[in-house]
């Protein structure tokens, strides 16, 4: 590469097909971060070299992602960021590994993405195991703190990896922690109608409803529950599309109010997080976790480039593996990769309060106290 030329970064997301919304959000985050890095003077250790995004569309399939990896690898990218879905990430990391090009997984929560021994693969955010474990811990802790108002639970989950995995875990863990799981309802994505689910919830009248669904279904469920006058003591979701989505909060403030979610989220008190939030609002975009996780990943990559002082694959991989990056706005502390997984990464609990999304747990990063149980 010519000295002083831009450093090319492969930004791969599913921007067409079924996952288009999340993919597009992720792309926006990565592009914003790259613009910010460049505006701040580029990679100083490399003479102010600029970052350049090479955009790729995985078309919502693994093979689509791999085709992009191949194309970009032949176009000399220094690293990859993105993937979004676990299935895509599994395929793209593996393809990138053949070239030893470092790959930063943005969301892809499947645990085995980072347990396959691929030296090039790094995940900054928490994996599924951690998220679900922390979600249960947090739920129990919050319930205890509030005087155990919730005892009975119904779980509504989408039927792919994340929803069914979580439902399985909840069913195993919750009974030992003083909860009774009344019923577990799986639904496909998309589901056209939630009337019956609401009906069943109404008839069993649980204290707590735990939905684990993607955005559209989540919204339909919440709307239908409101319509059918189903009012549990709390709705506590995990990675639950709508409870950490400003569009939902804005469009259905009544249905969204007081919903809690254990999810990837920024440390809301962090100034750079607030700045990003403002910027996203100004750009008329929605501040979603796909967006800021990608942003954070680019920041992490920029830091590694600074330390490596080179875009060389081996050096960059080494710099990532030894990264102790703390200039991000996630509530994780400095990064520390163990077998490619950032061991400090944890989710937090957010709640819809005053038409905004606030972190309410753990206390160390909480912006507001939890409202639990929900006032009748």
């Amino acid at each position, binding site marked *: 590469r010519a000295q002083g030329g831009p450093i090319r970064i492969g930004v791969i997301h599913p*921007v*067409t097909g*079924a996952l*288009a919304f999340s*993919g*597009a959000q992720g792309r926006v985050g990565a592009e914003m971060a790259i613009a910010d890095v460049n505006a701040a003077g580029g990679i100083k250790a490399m003479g102010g070299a600029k970052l350049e995004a090479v*955009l790729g*569309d995985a078309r919502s*399939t*693994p*093979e689509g992602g*791999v*085709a992009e990896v*191949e*194309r970009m*690898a*032949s176009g000399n990218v220094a690293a990859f960021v993105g993937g979004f879905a*676990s*299935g895509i990430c*599994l*395929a793209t990391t*593996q393809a990138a590994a053949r070239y030893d090009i470092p790959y930063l997984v943005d969301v892809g929560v*499947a645990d*085995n993405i980072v347990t*396959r*021994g*691929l030296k090039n693969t790094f995940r900054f955010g928490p994996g599924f195991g951690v998220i679900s474990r922390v979600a249960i811990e947090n739920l129990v802790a919050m319930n205890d703190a509030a005087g155990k108002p919730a005892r009975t639970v119904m779980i509504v989950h*989408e*039927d*792919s*990896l*994340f*929803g*069914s*995995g979580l439902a399985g875990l909840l069913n195993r863990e919750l009974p030992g922690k003083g909860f009774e799981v009344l019923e577990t309802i*799986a639904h*496909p994505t998309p589901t056209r109608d939630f009337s019956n689910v609401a009906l069943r919830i109404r008839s069993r009248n649980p204290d707590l409803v735990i939905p684990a669904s993607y955005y559209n279904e989540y919204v339909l469920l919440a709307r239908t529950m409101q319509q059918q006058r189903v009012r549990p003591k709390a709705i506590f979701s995990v990675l639950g599309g709508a409870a950490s989505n400003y569009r939902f909060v804005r469009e259905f403030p009544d249905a969204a109010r007081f919903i809690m979610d254990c999810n990837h989220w920024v440390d809301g008190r962090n100034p750079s997080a607030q700045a990003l939030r403002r910027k996203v609002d100004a750009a008329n975009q929605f501040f979603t976790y796909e967006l800021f996780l990608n942003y954070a990943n680019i920041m992490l990559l920029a830091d590694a480039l600074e330390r490596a002082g080179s875009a060389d694959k081996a050096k960059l991989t080494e710099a990532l593996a030894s990264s102790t990056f703390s200039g991000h706005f996630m509530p994780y502390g400095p990064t520390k990769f163990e077998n490619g997984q950032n061991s400090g990464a944890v989710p937090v609990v957010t709640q819809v309060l005053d038409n905004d999304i606030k972190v309410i747990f753990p206390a160390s990063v909480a912006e507001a106290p939890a409202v639990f149980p929900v006032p009748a």
Partner: protein
Amino acid sequence: MRDHLAPVLIVLALLAGVPLVVDSNVVLNFLKVALMLALAGTGWNLLGGYGGQFSFGHAVFFGTGAYAVAVLQVRFGINAWAAFGAGIVLGAVLGLAIGWLTFRAGLRGSYFALVTLAFAEVARIIASVWPLTGAGAGILIPLREGFLTLQFGSRAEGYWFVLALLGIAMLIVRAIEVRRFGAQLVAVRENEDAARALGVDVLRVKLLAIALSGGITASAGAFYAQTFLYLDAGLAYGPWISVEALLTAIVGGIGTVWGPLLGALVLQALSELGKHLGGDAPGLGLVLFGAVLILVVRFAPNGIVGLARSLRPRRLARG
């Protein structure tokens, strides 16, 4: 009879030489995916193109081949090659089962098309809830490169493998074309009653065709699983796979040996072209792809093979 196979063998040999002269992984990856689609399409074509039984659900075979190879390795520790073979057999057996249910009931035409679509959906739903297939979580084949594990280190090896599969499938189709079974299959496509009157056991012919078809398409699915190493219900049984299988065959030239291969290459190229022209704007590339697809249909109504034939001086029918 040898003469009939010669053109196929020559083209296969030429394709086999590609990795020796081209060392772009982009090209090899492109070809590899195209050949995989051609393989799925060749299976579809045997039943749909020659037999006239349009299936909208060939994903059911693709997915079954894929899941078989994954589940047998991961859950039962069976060797990858054996699992691959089992996947093909399973595809064929499933074909027999579906064929027996549908053809026996006299389903044909669009009814058959929609029933196969329903079978694919049933398979997708089952795979998304059955623990054996990993249910919603999907199933991951552990990454272990090597000949015995059927995971190829280099792009070229994977390419040759799928080329070999496609070659076998094409030779099978070609051989059928020039035999009694081929004539009967085509007769069934054209007019079942007339075929029956001429002593064709219509049910048997269709069953044999769907079994072969299922097996061939299952091999494409097995290859998919073995290449990307991860499967979930949507990837294995998604409706788009069924569409691609029929698209390659129809665009290339239905009921011809070459159709699926040409169709797959052209469609993949169009898709790349769309992507290229559409730039980074999501959707634009696919809009162009759709538009070109319609133009292809407009100007090559009998597929690319048909177009090529009409450009050549009229040949007397094969004798």
